[in-house]
């Protein structure tokens, strides 16, 4: 819904998992840690649970036994387990692979003279045309649709004969058109079709992108006006819809733009993913 889009664009919905919850329990008894070890480190909840699960499989996570400053990170007083080491090694490999897959270190250019402003995962493309300002805002968070077909094949144990599918980012995007000296902007909430992301030779049946909602909003980054009428295109007269699409096309938001936006968003998302892996690796290793 356009009403919550401004919030959605700027903050992704995150479902936190219990494994990321950090509640430290003091260590009472431990069959894992020799009483003669130099340090006794508290378990995280996830490790405690893992050790319970591990009991049946014979797996016991081991703590590094430091005899002084940790060789991994000098002066670091946080937890370092073998799991963390394995995790760090995995992340190193993952980063190497992802960097190999990265087509370019620089982001692809949009045609049509769009200026790009980036703030973390949110980006704005801005263009001025005969005094009119057009701003397209999108967020790469939660912009990669799941590939249900591949997941189903994997679930059934079928080996895909092809290599892993390319990750494609198809973010919702908001187009704001502001005329000179106007108090309001005309705002369009646009989406890519669901479940029909082109994988080359697929039978696409929908337009490359669609307008979902249209609304007038106060110009600038002010508060979203909840009381402004929002036109939903689900049951809109098709002629009016086509006029709205032509309106956007005249301002550079056409099928070419939509295709290039996918390229840009995909590159951005990949870049942010690699950066996240780097940060995660640093965090795990305490670098």
């Amino acid at each position, binding site marked *: 819904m356009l009403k919550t889009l401004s919030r959605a664009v700027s903050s992704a919905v995150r479902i936190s998992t219990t494994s990321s919850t950090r509640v430290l329990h003091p260590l009472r008894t431990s069959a894992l840690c020799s009483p003669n070890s130099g340090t006794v480190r508290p378990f995280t909840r996830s490790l405690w649970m893992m050790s319970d699960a591990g009991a049946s499989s014979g797996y016991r996570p081991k703590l590094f036994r430091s005899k002084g400053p940790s060789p991994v990170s000098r002066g670091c007083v946080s937890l370092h387990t073998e799991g963390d080491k394995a995790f760090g090694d995995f992340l190193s490999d993952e980063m190497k692979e992802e960097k190999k897959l990265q087509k370019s270190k620089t982001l692809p250019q949009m045609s049509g003279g769009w200026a790009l402003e980036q703030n973390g995962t949110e980006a704005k493309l801005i263009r001025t045309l005969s005094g009119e300002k057009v701003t397209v805002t999108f967020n790469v968070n939660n912009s990669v649709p799941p590939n249900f077909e591949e997941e189903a094949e994997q679930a059934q144990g079928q080996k895909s004969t092809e290599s892993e599918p390319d990750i494609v980012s198809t973010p919702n995007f908001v187009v704001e058109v502001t005329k000179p000296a106007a108090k309001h902007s005309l705002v369009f909430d646009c989406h890519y079709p669901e479940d029909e992301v082109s994988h080359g030779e697929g039978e696409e049946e*929908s337009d490359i992108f669609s307008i979902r909602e249209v609304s007038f909003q106060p110009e600038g980054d002010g508060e979203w006006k909840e009381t402004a009428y929002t036109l939903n295109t689900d049951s809109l007269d*098709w*002629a009016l819809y*086509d*006029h709205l699409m032509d309106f956007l*096309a005249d301002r550079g938001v056409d*099928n070419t733009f939509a*295709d290039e936006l996918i390229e840009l968003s995909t590159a951005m998302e990949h870049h942010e993913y690699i950066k996240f892996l780097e940060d995660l690796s640093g965090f795990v290793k305490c670098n």
Partner: protein
Amino acid sequence: MGVVLRNLQNVVPLRRARLRKDVETLRHILGIQKFDLGVICVDNRKIQRINNIYRNKNMPTDVLSFPFYEELRPGKLPCPLYRDELNLGDIFLGVEYLMKQCQQQSQDLHGILTSVTAHGICHLLGYRHETEEEWKEMLQKESYILNEFNRFTGRQLVPLTKKCSQDG
């Protein structure tokens, strides 16, 4: 329901509202307003693929029609019993192919699109051009449609049938 218009390509800039308006005028002339119709604009790659799948011709073309009713007598409107069957079918417009044609012949793209759509609608209504007799009948129908269209709109569209003998 009405005309489902889709633009699946980014090679040719299209005015959707203009195309829709022209198609609505054609529907009015033919008296087929109660029937749904699909008009899908595609590029050479896509229309070539469809041409290859359905006609074994691995090349782009200007228009491909997929009638909902496959055995209509030319010009006889279907009388469906159910609302779901108020459908004439889909017309795929090879807009990239047509754009090239327009550039070579210095013609207006949207005019050509409308003429080609009229041709496509005739196919959906059972007209064919595989024999001389069929070709004459279809040309006559197309000429009537476009003459009426030109009368309403002041434009000067001409039938596709006299130029084309390959589409289906």
